[in-house]
């Protein structure tokens, strides 16, 4: 009888029960499940991957700095999560459409999002910056889990168009508790659409540990919905590339959705407003700092003789140019025009709003020189 299933005894917080290709020291280890998907990842490619991880790390630090200096209202640090973000994005085709949450800096780096587009939203100038159709990345979602359904709907569209893209839904461990994320699995499985779910399990949803959301590893949920899943070391970029290639290939080849749980860690605070010392130990953070996703790629590249000082210098120089551009986009930025608040509420004229806009314009005109 297939129905006397009992839950697994592994707990959600067991972070070592994962598929891995690079160990904490950067040594190459084997994983039979992943090997076929990593065979062609050579040193030149891994240097490119590392470059994106490095840029994500620096860009993130600059975001924190700009927030501390008052140029941004908020920043959601991604430090420690570069491997899953950069690795999964690298594994995709350029026209696969990614639906991120607010923390997925790394995937946006891979897709070539421009410096100013990382900061204008947190600066408060706009709700979304880049054009999603240029980079095939939707603007970051703040409502937890909502984007998972958008990804599934997009994949329904791919299915109808006969396209060979996949859609990717990115979300956190906390998000798995939302009805929407579960409904997304149900719709995806029912229709067998080409979507990949990527859960970045960074152990925390603000102050809530992952065990509050799930007693079993999050990856265990998907099979119950008819979706194959893989639990991967989210700090091992090689494993993330391989796992995502498996998942995307599964989806792309018409076999329906696939699910990845990437076990990782949010080294920084939830956002710059958060004080994580209220809810977690320094020891835990230290444990994870020792498992840094960048360090192990660097060590691996060094062992291959593919990491030297000139490479390091070029990374730093590139990142410096990038972060300088971020900074200049917000430092001394001019405030947007007041009437812009009315733009794009509707795609077509709306008599009610048009009247409000006209009234407000004439109200502003009533001030000498217009309003501030």
């Amino acid at each position, binding site marked *: 009888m297939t129905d006397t299933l009992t839950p697994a005894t592994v707990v959600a917080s067991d972070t070592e029960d994962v598929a891995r290709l690079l160990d904490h020291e950067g040594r190459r280890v084997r994983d039979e499940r992943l090997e076929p998907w990593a065979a062609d990842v050579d040193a030149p490619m891994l240097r490119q991957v590392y470059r994106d991880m490095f840029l994500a790390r620096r860009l993130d630090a600059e975001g924190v700095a700009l927030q501390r200096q008052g140029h941004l209202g908020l920043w959601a640090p991604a430090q420690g999560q570069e491997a899953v973000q950069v690795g999964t994005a690298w594994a995709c085709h350029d026209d696969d*459409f990614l*639906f991120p949450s607010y923390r997925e800096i790394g995937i946006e780096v891979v897709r070539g999002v421009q410096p100013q587009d990382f900061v204008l939203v947190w600066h408060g100038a*706009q*709700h*979304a910056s880049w*054009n*999603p*159709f240029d980079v095939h990345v*939707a*603007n970051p979602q703040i*409502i937890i889990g*909502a984007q*998972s*359904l*958008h*990804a*599934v*709907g*997009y*994949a*329904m*569209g*791919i*299915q*109808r*168009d006969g396209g060979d893209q996949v*859609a990717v839904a990115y979300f956190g461990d906390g998000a798995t508790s939302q*009805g*929407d994320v579960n*409904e*997304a699995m*149900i*719709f995806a499985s*029912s229709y067998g659409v080409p979507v990949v779910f990527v859960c970045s399990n960074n152990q925390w949803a603000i102050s809530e540990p992952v065990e509050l959301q799930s007693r079993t590893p999050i990856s265990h949920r998907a099979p119950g919905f008819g979706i194959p899943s893989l639990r991967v070391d989210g700090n091992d970029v090689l494993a993330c590339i391989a796992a995502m290639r498996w998942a995307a290939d599964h989806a792309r080849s018409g076999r329906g959705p696939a699910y990845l749980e990437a076990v990782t860690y949010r080294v920084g605070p939830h956002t710059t407003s958060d004080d994580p010392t209220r809810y977690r130990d320094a020891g835990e953070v230290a444990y994870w700092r020792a498992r840094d996703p960048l360090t192990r790629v660097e060590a691996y590249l060094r062992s291959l003789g593919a990491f030297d000082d000139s490479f390091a210098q070029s990374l730093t120089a590139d990142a410096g140019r990038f972060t300088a551009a971020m900074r200049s986009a917000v430092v001394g930025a001019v405030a947007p025009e007041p009437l812009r608040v009315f*733009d*794009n*509420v*509707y*795609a*077509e004229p*709306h*008599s*009610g*709003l048009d009247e409000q806009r006209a009234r407000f314009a004439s109200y502003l005109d009533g001030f000498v020189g217009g309003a501030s």
Partner: protein
Amino acid sequence: MTELTMGKALTAAMRRALADDDRVLVMGEDIGRLGGVFRITDGLQEEFGARRVVDTPLAESGIVGTAVGLAFRGFRPIVEIQFDGFVYPAFDQIVSQVAKLHYRTQGRVKMPITIRIPWAGGVGAAEHHSESPEAYFVHTAGLRVVAVSNPQDAYTMLRQAIASDDPVVFFEPKRMYHAKGDVDLEADIADAAPLGLARVVREGTDVTVVTYGAQVTTAMDAALAAEDEGISLEIIDLRSLSPIDYGTVAASVRRTGRVVVTHEASREAGVAAEVIASITEKCFHYLEAPPLRVTGHDIPYPPAKLEHHHVPDLDRILDAVDQVLGRSSNVPEVTA
């Protein structure tokens, strides 16, 4: 001209949209093989296939959320919510995504989604099957909201809603599904009155009665009854609740000086409050009496055997007409 029920007019509008534009899809619960619990999608799956007329799993947030994703991919989904009371699980996707995405993305991502809702009471249904949630959507910037009252509008306005690049919440009064009327199936929708306009459905001189949906019929009945007493009612069918066509309403009120607004939804912060606040602002010096509301009570929709005490009928409209004409002593008093 073809004589059709409102239900069949809606079906015809979707059939036409599906035929004209292969990016149009219909999705919802039981809309495929069954043709919907009201049969409004009857025959569409057979004609256009299960890829375009899509039965969905039983989850409204999922339906609207996937429609958003389809819109990202360039589709124009028509979503059927099975009954008015089942739209609430989709509220987050409607309010935080459908309504806001165009604004959020500075116009880059369009949301040409039509959300069809069989709507309101008067059909003796069980709890949650007779809700009038339109005010929630009217209060939500980024949505257009329309309510149809007759087969021709049902046909034309549904086609316009599907063609609109904005999301439209489309209310279909259940108790009118079987009402018949002539429908011009061939007319070009570009020639029809735009989606945002109200219509004077009966001219009159004494009192302006503003309403929409199935209450238009009730108001017309009231006008006939009033006529017997020598009172001339002008009846305005708003048709669009966001935007509201205040040009048409104000022009009428300036002539009559008296206004009654009636709907089935409850009263506090409802659409009638909006109409009265705006009309008072725009026509204050023309008003001869305080504009009055005739609405459902501020109660959950009552059991079927009591619904006729909740949904405003002809008598309640006439009572308000008498009050605005000063023919009744039953003028409201503040009780506190």
